């Protein structure tokens, strides 16, 4: 197998494995948001804002993997 093909395989693996963890993380965060709103409906505004921030922070991990995948597949740099 040539080096570029291995690189493309690595790119697929990188983005796939990262998506596993990030999906789990955002799922757990959503669960927490649902539970807190069910318990205290009046904080839904504040909780949603904080949830968006946390979800974006978790999503950023997948974005790092995406950049690495782009590099491995030879799109950038």
């Amino acid at each position, binding site marked *: 197998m040539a080096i570029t093909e291995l690189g493309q395989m690595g790119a697929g693996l990188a983005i796939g494995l990262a998506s596993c963890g990030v999906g789990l993380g955002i799922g757990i965060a959503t669960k927490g948001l649902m539970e807190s709103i069910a318990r205290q409906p009046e904080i839904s505004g504040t909780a949603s804002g904080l949830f*968006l*921030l946390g979800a*974006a*922070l978790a*999503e*950023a991990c997948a*974005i*790092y993997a*995406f*950049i690495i995948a*782009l590099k491995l597949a030879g*799109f950038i740099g």
Partner: protein
Amino acid sequence: MSEGHWIVNTVLNGHNLSFNMDTLITMWSVMLVLILVAFISTRKLSIVPNKFQAFCETIMKFLWGLTDMMVKKEGRKHVPLVASLFLFIVSANLMGQLPLRLIHLQHGEIASPTNDLNLTAAMAIIVLVYYVTAGIMKKKGKFFLHGFDFISIILALVEILEMFTRPLTLALRLFGNILAGEILVGTILGMCAYGAPLPAMFFEVLVAFVQALVFTMLTLVYISSATGEEH
């Protein structure tokens, strides 16, 4: 994105310089828009605001509220930097949704300026310099080292490590999100050009606001942790 940037190489005093011209053009356009909006919105201020003034006051009230929430004491003096960053990033991200790709350049294409790592890295370094300066002005030498016991030295080392990782993650997060969005829209465009990219573009509008908010809130968190009493 796949076409890359329009890079111009020059030599100045024996140093090789390369400019990403498309990023420069879009960045200056965004700054021009912001300066014009700021200039127009501060003319003819009145106690009873008209619609445009009320809109601008709502934005500023939102940013003041955000700063008051994150930085407890003397937070208002950090508003100029934080508000500029927020407005600039929002305008820059939303600019990528305009059909500016119709304008043809020599190489590359006109897209949102935040799809260039150089721009986001520059903003992250501005944030780093700002919060370190704010911390040193507030706490003098105690910003780096609280005392000479074991835990303080370990914490100081971790703090120095964070000075590298914080700008890195700030820059990569914004850059990666915008680049991923553009590649996503481009991929869907390749599959079906009519109507199919619309949901992805609406999602990109949401991402534009969320990423600007995340950048701003993290800036505030860093400032508040640098100027706060204890870490």
